[in-house]
């Protein structure tokens, strides 16, 4: 009986299931779920395009020194003989006012854009989600009031202006720009998770966990949290685009990545001085920003469609 694999699943008594076989079924089910999800996701060509863009940009950012035609141009470098060359030939995107290859600098620019996005989200998501979970689960108590009123204060000002204010009082560099944006970003996750958690806390599975005496930690992280992974993931993917935009805005006014480091916003700001004659110096980094944001938005929309289809 124990190793009788030919027996149909439903005929096997629960106590008699071979753990090995159970794991096998579990694996198969998981593979099927993934397969179905991927099938649904891949039906929308735009979502797939977004995924391809995000993967390509990430790979280019990681392997920038090998992908960029002139990796040394991302460092302090001048070549006045080849300054302000229009796009084409040896320099696909042209060169800037001191002869650096703009394509190479854009590829390195992806690096700083992605580092900014990943760092901000990995600071913001745990904090925001934790606060939202706690406030939502203890809804109506003093904990809820304190957390949510503080959240309201942060949400009462456009995030950009507070990020600017914080960044301006610190030393202008990439780390401080990330800190400033993070400080303004967590309340959005707190609010999202708060809404979800305060709805979930009345569900039967939470009530039954409480009844059998599960600890608060178990209820928060093992019962409630797993049920809100999809909206959080979707928001993260869409937020990557926004963080890249805000980061480029901070760099544009000189509060982010400092030259000669190739931040995309910094490059747009520097290139704007040479408009309209040497348009390529500003336009290609600007397009690079748009490409990053577009990729993450397409992917995020794809994920949202996928999750909302699963729910209904």
């Amino acid at each position, binding site marked *: 009986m124990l190793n009788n694999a030919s027996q149909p699943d439903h005929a096997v008594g629960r106590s008699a299931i071979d753990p090995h076989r159970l794991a096998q079924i579990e694996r198969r089910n998981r593979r099927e779920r993934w397969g179905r999800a991927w099938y649904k996701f891949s039906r929308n060509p735009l979502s797939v395009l977004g995924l391809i863009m995000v993967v390509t940009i990430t790979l280019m950012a990681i392997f920038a020194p090998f992908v960029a035609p002139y990796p040394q141009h991302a460092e302090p470098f001048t070549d006045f003989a080849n300054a302000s060359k229009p796009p084409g030939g040896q320099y696909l995107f042209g060169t800037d006012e001191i002869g650096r290859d703009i394509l190479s600098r854009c590829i390195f620019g992806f690096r700083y854009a992605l580092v900014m996005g990943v760092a901000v989200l990995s600071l913001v998501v745990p904090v925001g989600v934790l606060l939202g979970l706690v406030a939502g689960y203890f809804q109506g108590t003093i904990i809820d009031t304190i957390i949510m*009123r*503080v959240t*309201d*204060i*942060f949400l*009462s*000002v*456009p995030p*950009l*202006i*507070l990020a*600017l*204010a*914080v*960044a*301006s*009082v610190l030393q202008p560099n990439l780390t401080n720009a990330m800190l400033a944006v993070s400080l303004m970003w967590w309340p959005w996750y707190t609010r999202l998770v708060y809404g979800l958690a305060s709805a979930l806390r009345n569900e039967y599975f939470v009530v039954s966990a409480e009844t059998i005496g599960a600890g608060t930690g178990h209820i928060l992280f093992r019962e409630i949290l797993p049920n809100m992974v999809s909206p959080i993931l979707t928001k993260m993917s869409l937020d990557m*685009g926004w963080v890249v*935009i805000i980061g*480029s*805005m901070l760099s*544009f*006014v*000189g*509060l982010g990545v400092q030259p000669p480091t190739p931040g995309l916003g910094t490059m*747009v700001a520097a290139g*704007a001085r040479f*408009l*309209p004659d040497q*348009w390529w110096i*500003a*336009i290609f980094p*600007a397009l690079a*920003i*748009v490409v990053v*944001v*577009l990729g993450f*938005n397409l992917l995020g929309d794809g994920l949202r469609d996928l999750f909302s289809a699963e729910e209904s």
Partner: protein
Amino acid sequence: MQRQADALRRLGLFLARRLVQSIFVLFGLSILIFTIARVLPGDPARTALGARAPQETVDRLREEMHLNDTLPVQYTYWLGDALRGDFGMSLVTRRSVTTDIAEFLPASLELVIFAGVLTLVGGIALGTLSARYKDSWVDNLIRILSYAGVVTPAFIFAIIFLLVFGLALDWLPSIGRLSEGVPKPPLVTGLITVDALLAGQLATFWDALQHLIMPGVALALGSMAQEARITRATMADNLNKDYIAAERALGIPERVVMGRFLLKPSLIPTISIFALDFAANLANAFLVELIFNWPGISRYGVNAMLRKDLNAITAVILILGVVFILMNIVVDLVVGALDPRIRLRAARSD
């Protein structure tokens, strides 16, 4: 009669509750800003006077600014002044911050209101068109364009416009609010287009409007695209509802079904997002204002931030917070007017 009085009383209660909440939020915001401004390294008195000022003068100013007191005491002094509309002197302009804001805020409001009108009209029109001709080429074109609009930051639009229409084609003026030599209208609202119309100076109005077009459109495109997407999504959703089918079955003309029964309830998410965008645009305008040399409050605020002009920074953030909160209250009122269910729910919870 009785029902009207009831509705008015509920409206009053709602407003009162929101205002009390807002005061708490603003109070918290002021503490937050004050903390940011005061935990800075460096002596505000020394910064204000410059490195070469004698120590006694700095000490006297420290005494005047209450910098020797504890932080909570300093905060109460600062709050008292702020409540009287006194935010101190700006280090950059060497004038009272309140005067500066009174001068720069109208320019920003004019820009943001202009962009807001474009956003609402354009966004709703495109969204409705898209939903009406769902899955046709019109719909696809609008969807692609609005995607491009959402993912492109306003400052990139600004640079492209400046490049194409301002410099290469030279169709539109690209700097400031008025051309040189054009007479300024007498100051009434501070919005040059409105003031010019009030004074009957059509030439000035025309010039000011031309100056508004590029920064206004650059600022509006992102939120317009967002509005178009939201309007389309809600309308497409509602289009499949039974009540629409019922109205069609009753023989109500398609125009009435679309305009009256479909558009109105579909506007609720559009309006909510619009209000948030409108307030956020006051802040987001900063790069657009920098690029077009628009003398607005965002440009003023950014310059203040770059030069660590604390009095100006705190004042600008507080003013933006006030506008943001007011807009949110207005949204709740408008949404209530559009959706009777929300009105009823608010009434029951009283």
